[in-house]
């Protein structure tokens, strides 16, 4: 079925994102496959934000730039999006109080409503213009007014009565202006009563937080940084119900070192940040390496370097993510190719971290982290299991083993007697955990740690390390939200291609990719210098015919990307 898109634009503080969430959630509850992306700036009020909700009856992998229904609250949004109509049937509802001289759009229909005036009439000062978007959407979908009222009451808790009056007034005004009936076949409400227990509508960050938690996560330490902050916010909200503790520490350095402390006490622990904060966690990351601390790290990228562009998307951190921490140690780096994958991958990675006692990075980017999509809960996720040591005076934290993995015990846990001494160490150490600088001891302990790498490589093969989308055509390598963009673009591209979605990056999934050795491939990434190209070339003997690079912080529109792909295929 066709894919339809609703775009809502306005100032920060006007509730653009919230309105889009209500729209998206309504569609989700009705059984649609929905994708929501939010474009916002680093400011609290004003500026220009817009949210896009694309939906269809089959999976939607990213949002579209052209809208079937466009709602703009202010002049800037009106202008910014006046070219963004999908087709002649598209509708642009705008705030005529803000945009007095609306010109006819390139295509589509326009309808000005005095949204501010109506708001003033109902609320007096204050008010919530974003409800207007919900009303227009409901009408446009052909949903009855009663449903609108119920949704408004449920979703906007402050000032419920005025809210309902305003929403109704807009609904009526729009209906009088001739909008009405459903634009979408089969959109009667409710179409499907969603099985809420297996389907959620979550952002990538929520999915990975929840997935990690289901896999055993107990503690999360972080310092807010876009686009990773919502992991912290989400888990903090779950303290009481989920028995997970999300601590906003004084800095990323504190977060990472507190996290390792919690690991020593036996808690399944994660940390998260964006590039700048992650940079501050480097020394601790290396500490996790030498102490063999299982530590799950979420790295959600945004354009860099340094502060960069805080609220937009990028995949610039690949080399940084792959080469974290001074010194040599085993680690795992993986990137989900959808919010759905983020859920299962987070659990997988937490489990692998504990199986192999090593730090693990889940690499995402703003578009994947902060965009929302239908999430189907998998029946099962891996559970972070621990190889338990035997308490007693002969216990050694770093016992030399064939596998390189030394059994664990935790201070103060029930099975520990007074003779058990569990010593972790940031220095090179003896099996006992006591420090050493002796040549043979250094070699022995490094060898022990290094022995884990091949085992990790085999263990990761339990999971889908590379996903392939499509059956024939040129292979296009991508990871993270690049995969989402390509999957959506493929729907519109007349020439065939196979998407090779790299999920596990370290260890490199050589086995799955050996078929491409000697072949021509295309790559796509959000970087200006071709990090992914260099990474692939380092690990696989391919010739890269074309690299699609984008580095303006914006995701690709699927239609635009389809055109690019047609050109280069």
């Amino acid at each position, binding site marked *: 079925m066709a894919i339809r898109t609703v775009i809502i634009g306005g100032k920060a503080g006007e509730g653009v994102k919230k309105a889009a969430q209500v729209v998206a959630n309504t569609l989700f509850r009705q059984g649609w496959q929905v994708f929501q992306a939010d474009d916002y700036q680093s400011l609290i009020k004003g500026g220009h934000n817009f949210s896009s909700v694309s939906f269809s009856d089959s999976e939607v992998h990213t949002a579209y730039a052209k809208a079937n229904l466009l709602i703009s609250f202010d002049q800037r949004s009106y202008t910014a999006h006046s070219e963004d109509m999908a087709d002649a049937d598209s509708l642009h509802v705008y705030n005529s109080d803000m945009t007095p001289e609306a010109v006819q759009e390139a295509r589509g229909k326009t309808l000005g409503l005095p949204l501010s005036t109506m708001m003033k009439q109902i609320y007096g000062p204050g008010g919530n213009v974003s409800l207007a978007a919900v009303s227009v959407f409901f009408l446009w979908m052909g949903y009855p007014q009663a449903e609108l009222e119920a949704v408004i009451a449920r979703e906007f808790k402050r000032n419920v009565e005025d809210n309902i009056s305003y929403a109704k007034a807009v609904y009526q005004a729009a209906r009088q202006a001739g909008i009405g009936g459903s634009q979408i076949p089969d959109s009667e409400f409710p179409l499907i009563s969603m099985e*809420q*227990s297996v389907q959620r509508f979550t952002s990538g960050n929520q999915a990975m937080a*929840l997935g990690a*938690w*289901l896999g*055993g996560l*107990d*503690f999360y*330490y972080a310092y807010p940084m876009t686009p990773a902050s919502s992991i912290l916010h989400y888990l903090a909200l779950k*303290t009481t*119900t*989920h*028995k997970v*503790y999300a*601590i906003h*520490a*004084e*800095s990323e*350095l*504190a977060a990472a*070192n*507190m*996290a*390792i*402390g*919690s*690991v*020593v*006490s*036996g*808690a*399944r*622990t994660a940390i998260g940040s964006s590039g700048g904060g992650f940079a501050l966690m480097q*020394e*601790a990351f290396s*500490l996790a390496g030498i*102490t063999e601390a299982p530590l799950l790290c979420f790295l959600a990228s945004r354009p860099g370097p340094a502060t960069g562009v805080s609220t937009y998307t990028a995949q610039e951190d690949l080399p940084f993510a792959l080469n974290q921490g001074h010194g040599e140690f085993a680690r795992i780096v993986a990137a989900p190719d959808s919010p759905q994958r983020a859920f299962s991958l987070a659990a997988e990675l937490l489990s692998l971290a504990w199986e192999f006692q090593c730090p693990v990075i889940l690499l995402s980017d703003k578009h994947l982290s902060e965009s929302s999509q239908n999430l189907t*809960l998998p029946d099962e996720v891996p*559970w972070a299991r621990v190889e338990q040591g035997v308490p007693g005076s002969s216990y050694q934290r770093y016992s030399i083993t064939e596998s390189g993995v030394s059994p664990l015990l*935790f*201070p*103060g*846990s*029930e099975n*520990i*007697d*007074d*003779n*058990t*001494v*569990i*010593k*972790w*160490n*940031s*220095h090179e150490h003896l099996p*006992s*955990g*006591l*420090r050493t600088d002796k040549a043979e001891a250094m070699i022995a302990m490094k060898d022990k740690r290094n022995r884990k790498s091949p085992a990790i490589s085999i263990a990761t093969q339990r999971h889908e390390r590379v996903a392939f989308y499509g059956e024939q055509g040129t292979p296009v390598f991508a990871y993270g939200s690049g995969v989402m963009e390509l999957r959506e673009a493929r729907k519109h591209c007349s020439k065939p291609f196979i998407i090779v979605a790299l999920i596990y990056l370290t260890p490199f999934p050589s086995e799955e990719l050996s078929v491409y050795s000697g072949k021509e491939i295309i790559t796509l990434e959000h970087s200006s210098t071709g990090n992914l190209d260099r990474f692939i070339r380092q690990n696989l003997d391919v010739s890269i015919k074309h690299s699609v690079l984008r580095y303006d912080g914006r995701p690709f529109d699927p239609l635009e990307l389809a055109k690019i792909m047609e050109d280069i295929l």
Partner: protein
Amino acid sequence: MMRDLGTGKENTWCTGCGNFGILNAVKKAIGELVENGSKLSDFAITCGIGCHGKIFDYLALSGIYGLHGRGTATAQGMKLANPALKVISFGGDGDSLGEGLEHTLFAAKRNMDITLILHNNGNYGLTTGQFSPLSEPGYKGLSTPLGSIEKPFRAIPLLLEAGASFVARGFSARPDHLTELIIAALNHKGFSFIEVMQPCVSYNNNYAYLNQKVKLLEVIPTTQAHAIDLASDPDHVYLGVFSRKNLPVYHELLYGSANPQKDRPDYLHRQDILHAK
């Protein structure tokens, strides 16, 4: 009888180093606490990097030899994951008031229920005697060959201001008194801080100065201003407890009397929670 708290590892502190006094006092304090019912397996230690940190290798107690400056952050994480632990963080003056100042002050601010023992030797011992945040102006070290041009922090007033609920000062050469302080700190519920005057025979041998200046506090000062005055008295190095307050502790504010290590929901329980409406 309690098992030996030593590890048998060769001790590489300089002969005469004040750290020996601290090590002995810690052993004695833990011995007494265990005699009075504490479980040895409930003690957990951490430290920074520096001469002070080597105490980790000489104590047969569980824990983690942390990063320079980060021990007190790590200690907080250890405590939060298992509040049954008695967590001790050993810090150097460079470590806890330089590189890791932030963690020290935030642990105090949070009234995190851990103990920080500051080995104040007035320099960076292990890296060959550079000036530290507690060195006196004019201190000559390899990084300040012309003499330090910074004023030192005052550890106790700073910690008091940050919110530490138990603040004391000991002297490594008064091991019995120090033992008492450590016992009191470990028994204190909340953030406890002991500044231990620890002579460094190699770079800052202030035994004579300290022996001459130390004086025992008679009572706990009743106001913070008075505590600060006494702590920074130019004529005396007062030893004893400067402040002790009963205040809510962080982990109880976070999860009451739960114990995340013991009460963690298992996989099935998590599935239930996930699917609960």
